[in-house]
C-alpha cells in the first residue's frame, strides 16, 4: 500500500517539470542507442546496419518515449494541462475577441451573483434566530378597521394565556422615547416588547440579563435593554452601565442588559427595548386601541395549521363574548414570509430580469464561439486528418469555452463584490436585512456553477458542430465559400433573434417601471409638496398629560400639551420666512395611523358595533391646512377661536362626504367619533361604568361639521383616500402627545430650522425635536422602493440592450466578411452601393423584425408577473410598448448598419482576388 502511495506521489510530482524530464529521457535513450550501435559495429555490422538494428531492438523510439511519458506523470492531467495551455495561447492571440467575451460574461454572471445574493439572504438563508423555522408572525386581518394587522392588548393577553400550541407568543410595538439626563436629550426609537420576546427569538443578551416575567407588572417595568449601537455611541461601551439608571420619558429606568451587536428585527431600527406594561386603568389596554404586532414560536411537533386553528378558536370566542373585533380573524404565517412579503414579488421579478441578462450574455458567447469555430474549420479538418480523435477535439474546444467562462466568472464575482456594497448603500431602507446581504459561499458555488454550465453549453454546440463536418469538404473549400456553414448561420441568426426578443421583454419591464414611478410622483396627493418643512415633536406624557385625568377619559388631561403646541405654533408664526404653521398627529404618506368609527345623528343609530362606519381620525392645530396647502372645498378651516370651551367642530374630507352622505353638503350636520352607549356591547358598558371610567350617563362628544377638505393621501401615494375626520387638537376627546409640526416657508424650508428650534427651546428647553425634513423629502422617500426597482430593472435592461447590440453587430459583421466574395461579384456585375447596402441590411432587419415580434408576444405574457409592482400603468400599456419597440429597433438597426456600410466599401477587385 505504501508503495502505491509513493508511486502516485512521484507521478503527481512528475507533472511538474515534465519538459525537463522528457529531455533527460531523450538523452538516456540517445546514450542507449549509441551504446548499442557501438556494440553492433564492434560485432561487425556496418554503421547503417548497426543503427537500424539498434532501433529495431529498442522497439520504436517514439513509442518508448510515449510509454515513458505516460508512466512519468498522470496522462489525463497532462492532456488537460496541454489543452489549457493551448487555449490560453489562443485567447492571447485574439485579445479583442477574448475581451468582448470576458466583459459579456462578467456582466451576465456578476449581475446574477448579486441578485442571487439578495435572493439568498431574503428568501433562502434562515433568519438569524434560534430554530427560525418554528417562528411565526401572527396578525389580525379583516376589513372593518383601517389598520388590518394590529392587535389590542387584551386580545394579546388572552391569546397568550389560553393558547395550547405555542411555546411563546410575544407582542411588540415601536414608539419614540425621550432619553434625557447627562447628555443632550435624545429621541430614541424604542421597541416595547412582552418579556419573553428575546427568548422567543433565542437571542441571549451580550451583557447583563434579558427581560423576565417579573418585569411585566406595572411598577416593575422600568427596566431597559440597550442596543449595541446605542451602548457604544452614547455610553462609550462602558460595561458598568448595566445596573445604572437612565431617565426615559422623565422616569428612572434601570439598564439590565446590552444586546449583541448583530441583532436586528425586521428593518426596525430600535435602539432601546423596554417591557410592555400598562397601568391598571390605562386606556391603551382596551379594545379601543389596536397597535400590537405579534410573533410566536410553535411547540415542537405542532404544525402552523394547528396553531392557526387554536388561535382562531380563541379569537372567535372573544368576538362572540365581547362583541368586538367583529369580522376579523388571525392569520398565522412563517416569520420570514411576513418579513419579505412586501419585497418578495419585486425580488423575484428582478431575479427573472437578471436571468434574462445572463441568457443574452450566453447567446452572445455562443455566437462568438460559433464564429470562431467557423474560422478554425480548416485547422479542425487538418487535425482530424492527422489522427486526432473527435473526442479529443471536442474536449479541447470545451476547455477553451470553460476557461473563458471561468475567467468571466471570476471577473463577474469581482464585479459582484463591488456591486453588493453599492446595492446595500442604495437600498438601505428598501430591502429588509440589507446589511446581511453579502457574497457568501453558496453564492460562490452558484457563480461557478453558472460559469461552468455557461461554458459547457456555449462551447458544446459549436464544438460538436465543428467536428461533425466532413473532413474532405473543409480541406477542399476555400475559406470564403458563400454556401458554407448554412446550418451554422441559421443557428447564429436564431441566437440573435432570441437575444432581441429577450431584450425587448426586459426593456418593456423597465419601461413600465419608469412610467409607474412617474405616475406615482405625479399623483395628486392633495397637498403642496414643495416649500413645506416638517418635524416631529413627541412630548413626554409625564410632563404634559395629567395621567389621572386621562384614565378617567377627561378632556382636561391634555391641557398642557394643547398649551405647548399653541404657544410653539404662535411663536413659529412670527419667525421671518414662515407663511403658515400648524401641526397634525399623522402626516400624509406616513400611514393610516388612527382608525375610529363615526356616528351620524341625521339617521337612525346602528343597533350594534357592526353597523358603525369606519373612518380615519386626525387632530390638527394651528393653520395646518394652509401650511400644507390643502384646499378647503366648502365651509371653513379651524381657527384659534376653536378652543376647548367653544362649540365642538370637525372638518371632514370629500371621500367621507361621498361615501356616507352621497355627496350632499354636510355643513351643519352633527356627528360623533365615539360610539354612544347604546351601540356598545352591554358587558363592556357595564365594566366601564363599574370601574368608573365613564359615568352612567356618558354621551360621546357631538361635533358639528364646519368644513370639507380635499382628499389627502395619508396612506401613501399608491393608496386611495379613506374617509377622514379632522378635529381641533384642543377639542379632541382623546389626546395624543406626538405631533408633527408643519410649516410653510418662503423659500428653502430648511433655512428656518434654526429659528424654529430656538422658539421651541424657549418654550421647553428639554424638548427634543426629531425627523426634521422638508415634505418633499418625505414624498421622495415614499417612492424609494419603486424607484430602486426601476433603477435596477433599468440597469438590467440597459445591459441587455448593449449585449444584444453587440450580438447583432457581431453576427452582421461576420456575415459581411463571409459574403465578401459574393458582394465583390455582385458589384463587379454592376450592383451599386445602395444595392449592396440593401442586400446586407435586409438580412439584419429580418432578424430584428422576427426578434421584435417574438419579444412582443413574450412581453405581453410576462409583464403580467409585474402587476403588483406597478401603479397607474397596465401591464400592456401601449405607449410603453411602442416606445420600447422603437428604441430597440433603432438600436438594432444601427448595430447592423455599421457592418452593412463596411460591405459597401468592398473593393470588388480585392474581394475576387482573395481566397
Amino acid at each position, binding site marked *: 500500500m505504501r*508503495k502505491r502511495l*509513493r*508511486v502516485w506521489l*512521484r*507521478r503527481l510530482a512528475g507533472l511538474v517539470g515534465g519538459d525537463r524530464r522528457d529531455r533527460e*529521457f531523450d*538523452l*538516456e*535513450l540517445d*546514450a*542507449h542507442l*549509441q*551504446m*548499442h550501435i*557501438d*556494440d553492433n559495429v564492434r560485432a561487425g555490422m556496418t554503421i547503417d546496419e548497426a543503427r537500424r538494428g539498434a532501433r529495431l*531492438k*529498442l*522497439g*520504436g*523510439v517514439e*513509442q*518508448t518515449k510515449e*510509454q*515513458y511519458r*505516460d*508512466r*512519468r506523470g498522470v496522462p489525463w492531467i497532462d492532456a488537460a494541462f496541454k489543452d489549457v495551455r493551448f487555449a490560453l495561447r489562443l485567447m492571447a492571440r485574439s485579445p479583442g475577441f477574448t475581451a468582448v467575451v470576458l466583459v459579456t460574461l462578467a456582466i451576465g454572471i456578476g449581475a446574477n451573483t448579486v441578485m442571487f445574493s439578495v435572493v439568498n439572504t431574503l428568501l433562502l438563508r434562515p433568519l438569524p434566530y434560534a430554530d427560525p423555522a418554528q417562528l411565526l408572525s401572527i396578525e389580525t386581518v379583516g376589513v372593518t378597521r383601517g389598520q388590518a394587522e394590529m392587535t389590542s392588548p387584551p386580545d394579546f393577553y388572552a391569546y397568550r394565556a389560553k393558547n395550547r400550541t405555542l411555546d411563546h407568543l410575544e407582542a411588540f410595538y415601536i414608539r419614540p422615547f425621550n432619553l434625557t439626563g447627562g447628555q443632550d436629550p435624545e429621541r430614541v426609537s424604542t421597541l416595547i416588547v412582552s418579556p419573553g420576546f428575546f427568548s422567543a427569538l433565542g437571542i441571549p443578551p451580550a451583557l447583563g440579563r434579558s427581560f423576565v416575567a417579573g418585569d411585566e407588572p406595572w411598577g416593575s417595568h422600568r427596566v431597559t435593554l440597550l442596543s449595541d449601537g446605542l451602548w457604544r455611541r452614547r455610553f462609550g461601551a462602558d460595561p458598568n452601565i448595566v445596573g445604572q439608571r437612565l431617565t426615559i420619558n422623565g422616569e428612572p429606568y434601570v439598564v439590565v442588559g446590552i444586546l449583541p451587536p448583530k441583532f436586528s428585527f425586521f428593518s426596525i431600527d430600535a435602539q432601546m427595548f423596554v417591557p410592555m406594561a400598562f397601568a391598571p386603568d390605562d386606556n391603551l389596554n382596551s379594545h379601543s386601541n389596536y397597535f400590537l404586532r405579534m410573533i410566536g414560536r410553535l411547540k415542537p411537533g405542532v404544525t402552523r395549521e394547528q396553531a392557526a386553528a387554536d388561535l382562531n378558536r380563541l379569537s372567535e370566542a372573544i368576538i362572540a363574548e365581547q362583541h368586538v373585533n367583529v369580522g376579523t380573524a388571525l392569520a398565522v404565517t412563517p416569520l420570514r414570509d411576513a418579513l419579505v412579503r412586501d419585497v418578495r414579488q419585486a425580488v423575484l421579478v428582478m431575479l427573472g430580469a437578471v436571468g434574462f441578462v445572463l441568457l443574452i450574455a450566453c447567446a452572445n458567447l455562443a455566437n462568438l464561439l460559433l464564429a470562431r469555430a467557423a474560422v478554425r474549420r480548416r485547422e479542425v479538418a487538418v487535425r482530424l486528418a492527422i489522427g486526432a480523435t473527435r473526442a479529443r477535439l471536442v474536449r479541447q474546444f470545451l476547455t477553451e469555452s470553460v476557461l473563458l467562462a471561468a475567467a468571466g466568472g471570476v471577473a463577474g464575482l469581482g464585479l459582484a463584490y463591488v456591486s453588493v456594497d453599492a446595492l446595500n448603500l442604495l437600498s438601505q431602507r428598501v430591502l429588509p436585512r440589507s446589511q446581511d446581504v453579502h457574497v457568501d459561499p453558496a453564492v460562490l458555488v452558484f457563480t461557478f456553477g453558472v460559469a461552468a454550465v455557461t461554458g459547457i453549453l456555449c462551447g458544446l454546440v459549436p464544438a460538436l458542430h465543428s467536428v461533425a463536418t466532413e473532413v474532405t469538404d473543409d480541406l477542399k473549400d476555400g475559406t470564403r465559400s458563400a454556401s458554407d456553414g448554412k446550418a451554422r448561420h441559421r443557428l447564429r441568426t436564431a441566437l440573435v433573434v432570441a437575444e432581441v426578443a429577450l431584450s425587448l421583454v426586459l426593456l418593456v419591464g423597465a419601461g413600465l417601471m419608469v412610467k409607474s414611478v412617474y405616475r406615482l410622483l405625479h399623483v395628486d396627493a392633495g397637498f403642496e409638496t414643495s416649500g413645506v418643512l416638517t418635524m416631529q415633536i413627541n412630548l413626554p406624557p409625564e410632563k404634559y398629560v395629567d395621567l389621572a385625568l386621562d384614565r378617567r377619559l377627561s378632556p382636561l388631561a391634555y391641557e398642557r400639551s394643547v398649551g405647548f403646541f399653541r404657544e410653539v405654533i404662535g411663536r413659529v408664526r412670527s419667525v421671518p420666512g414662515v407663511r403658515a404653521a400648524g401641526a397634525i398627529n399623522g402626516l400624509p404618506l406616513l400611514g393610516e395611523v388612527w382608525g375610529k368609527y363615526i356616528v351620524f345623528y341625521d339617521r337612525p343609530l346602528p343597533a350594534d358595533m357592526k353597523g358603525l362606519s369606519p373612518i380615519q381620525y386626525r387632530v390638527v392645530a394651528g393653520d395646518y391646512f394652509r401650511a400644507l396647502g390643502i384646499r378647503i372645498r366648502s365651509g371653513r378651516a379651524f381657527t384659534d377661536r376653536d378652543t376647548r370651551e367653544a362649540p365642538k367642530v370637525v372638518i371632514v374630507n370629500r371621500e367621507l362626504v361621498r361615501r356616507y352622505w352621497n355627496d350632499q353638503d354636510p355643513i351643519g350636520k352633527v356627528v360623533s367619533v365615539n360610539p354612544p352607549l347604546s351601540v356598545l356591547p352591554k358587558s363592556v358598558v357595564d365594566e366601564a361604568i363599574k370601574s368608573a371610567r365613564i359615568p352612567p350617563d356618558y354621551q360621546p362628544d357631538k361635533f358639528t361639521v364646519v368644513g370639507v377638505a380635499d382628499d389627502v393621501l395619508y396612506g401613501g401615494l399608491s393608496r386611495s383616500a379613506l374617509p377622514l375626520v379632522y378635529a381641533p387638537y384642543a377639542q379632541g376627546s382623546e389626546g395624543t402627545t406626538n405631533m408633527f409640526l408643519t410649516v410653510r416657508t418662503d423659500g428653502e424650508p430648511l433655512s428656518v430650522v434654526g429659528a424654529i428650534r430656538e422658539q421651541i427651546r424657549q418654550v421647553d428647553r428639554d424638548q427634543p425635536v426629531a425627523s426634521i425634513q422638508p415634505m418633499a423629502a418625505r414624498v421622495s422617500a415614499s417612492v424609494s422602493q419603486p424607484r430602486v426597482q426601476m433603477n435596477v430593472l433599468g440597469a438590467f435592461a440597459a445591459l441587455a440592450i448593449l449585449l444584444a447590440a453587440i450580438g447583432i453587430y457581431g453576427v452582421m459583421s461576420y456575415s459581411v466578411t463571409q459574403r465578401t466574395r459574393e458582394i465583390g461579384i455582385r458589384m463587379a456585375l454592376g450592383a451599386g452601393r445602395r444595392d449592396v447596402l440593401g442586400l446586407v441590411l435586409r438580412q439584419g432587419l429580418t432578424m430584428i423584425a422576427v426578434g421584435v415580434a417574438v419579444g412582443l408576444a413574450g412581453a405581453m405574457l410576462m409583464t403580467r408577473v409585474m402587476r403588483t409592482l406597478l401603479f397607474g400603468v397596465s401591464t400592456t400599456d401601449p405607449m410603453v410598448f411602442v416606445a420600447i419597440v422603437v428604441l430597440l429597433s433603432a438600436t438594432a438597426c444601427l448595430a447592423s448598419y455599421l457592418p452593412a456600410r463596411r460591405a459597401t466599401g468592398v473593393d470588388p477587385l480585392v474581394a475576387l482576388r482573395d481566397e
Partner: protein
Amino acid sequence: MADRADVWQGTLALMVLKTLETMGPLHGYGIARRIEQTSGDLLIINYGTLYPQLLKLEQEGSIESEWGISDNNRKAKFYRLTNAGRQQVHEETREWEQTTAILDRFLSPKEQS
C-alpha cells in the same frame, strides 16, 4: 493478454533487480543485454519495454539513478539497488522458489508414493 503482461511485468522487475544485485550499478542498455544473456537468449524482449519498468521501480523506491560515464566513455544513466530493493530481491526470490516448489509437486505428481 492482460494477465500475461502483468506477470511479465512482475518477472521483468525481479530480473532487473537481480541483475543489479549481481552486477552492481548498471545502465539501461547494460541491464537489457545482461537479462538477454542470462536467460540464455530464450527471452527476446524489446529493449524499450525496460525503461517504463525502470521508471516504475524507481518510483517504488527499489532502485535509484544517477548519471555517470560508461565503459566506452559515454554519458549514461546508471541504476543501482536501494536497501529496500535489496530486501525486495531476497523476499521475491524466496517467494518464487516456494511457488515453483509447490507447482512442481502439482505438475509432476509421480513423486508421490
